[in-house]
């Protein structure tokens, strides 16, 4: 029984999660047809769907504009490359460092941090940047695939293109019952693009 859709018979409206699943093709055929029929009659739910779609478009636009940083899986990065985006990738082993930069026509900047993830239940990170002495940026509950052996981080490209020379250090930490255990430390020596 499709309880959320049945709930519409009581409340008159569809819950946001039902609309979201419907929009992203996550509802089964019967539910999809019921939502189709409901949206053909209910403008309130139609407007609610429009708001969700607008949020999705906002997420897509923000990502394409390079104003979002996020951890992503390798297949997603491959997908971006297949779409023709200009990728700049830096692969760093645990304890390693890399000289890096960003060109004006780069679209995506990815750091690929090799890290042993077997047995890790939850992953945090701490980011320190030389332009902000003493400041530790905490990143909590990073998504990861324990089979991947690496963590890929996409940076805010729009911001990166404006940054001066600096050094960034990111530490990956396994969160365990009795505290956090360091998995790896990665150093990025960033140089601004000449003439940029």
């Amino acid at each position: 029984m499709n309880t959320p859709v049945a709930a519409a018979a009581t409340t008159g409206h569809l819950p946001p999660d039902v609309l979201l699943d419907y929009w992203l093709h996550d509802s089964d055929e019967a539910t999809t047809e019921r939502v189709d029929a409901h949206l053909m009659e209910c403008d309130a739910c139609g407007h609610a769907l429009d708001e969700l779609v607008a949020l999705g478009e906002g997420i897509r636009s923000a990502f394409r504009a390079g104003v979002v940083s996020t951890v992503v899986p390798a297949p997603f990065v491959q997908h971006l490359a297949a779409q023709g985006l200009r990728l700049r990738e830096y692969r760093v082993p645990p304890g390693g460092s890399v000289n890096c930069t960003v060109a004006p026509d780069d679209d995506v900047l990815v750091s690929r941090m090799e890290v042993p993830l077997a047995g890790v239940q939850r992953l945090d990170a701490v980011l320190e940047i030389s332009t902000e002495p003493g400041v530790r940026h905490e990143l909590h509950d990073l998504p990861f695939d324990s089979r991947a052996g690496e963590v890929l981080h996409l940076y805010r490209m729009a911001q990166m293109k404006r940054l001066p020379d600096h050094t960034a250090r990111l530490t990956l930490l396994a969160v365990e019952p009795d505290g956090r255990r360091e998995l790896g430390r990665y150093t990025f020596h960033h140089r601004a693009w000449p003439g940029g």
Partner: protein
Amino acid sequence: MTADTAAATLAETPEARAARQIASAPPGEARAAEAELYRLLAPRLRRFGQRHLRDAHAAADLAQHVMVLTIEQLRDGRLREPERVLSFVLGACRLTVQHQRRGERRREELLQLHADAVPYADLSAGIHAGPRLDHQRVADCLERLPERERAVLVLSFYDDQPSEAVGAQLGLTAGNVRVIRHRGIDKLRRCVQQGDGVRRAAA
């Protein structure tokens, strides 16, 4: 609700009233009712088209085709129960999507045959567009989300991926992804609304 009550309720909807007026008038002379029916149905047809065809232009084509077909049927008296116009429209949408996916050309022939008879044929221009958001505001709100929720939202919405596809990339079940996605989008919506980052798109 009894069957009689349901039927009476159906007959009193604005769509049913407009459809009856079109069906009872000489063909082409119920312009106000036709315009009202268009105003009510066009956004709903657009949404259906975007959901099932994933393309704004194809959605506009679908809306135009179904509107023309519906008006034609009502004018000619071929819709035996005008108050059930929504059922007819829904069925027409589904058939149109099926035909479109099979590469049928009938819709273009119908548009060419009847486009001049329907003064508001350019539905792509008249269809209500959804709200547009300030992407910097969305980005600021995205940055406030936990890393896992942000990643799930980006992966889900960059290419409108279902939960199974996102889960396969992140080592999560589809169910986990949906829970994280729902939580994240709810937080994002609240944050964006608090920041008043919505501006309505021009019609």
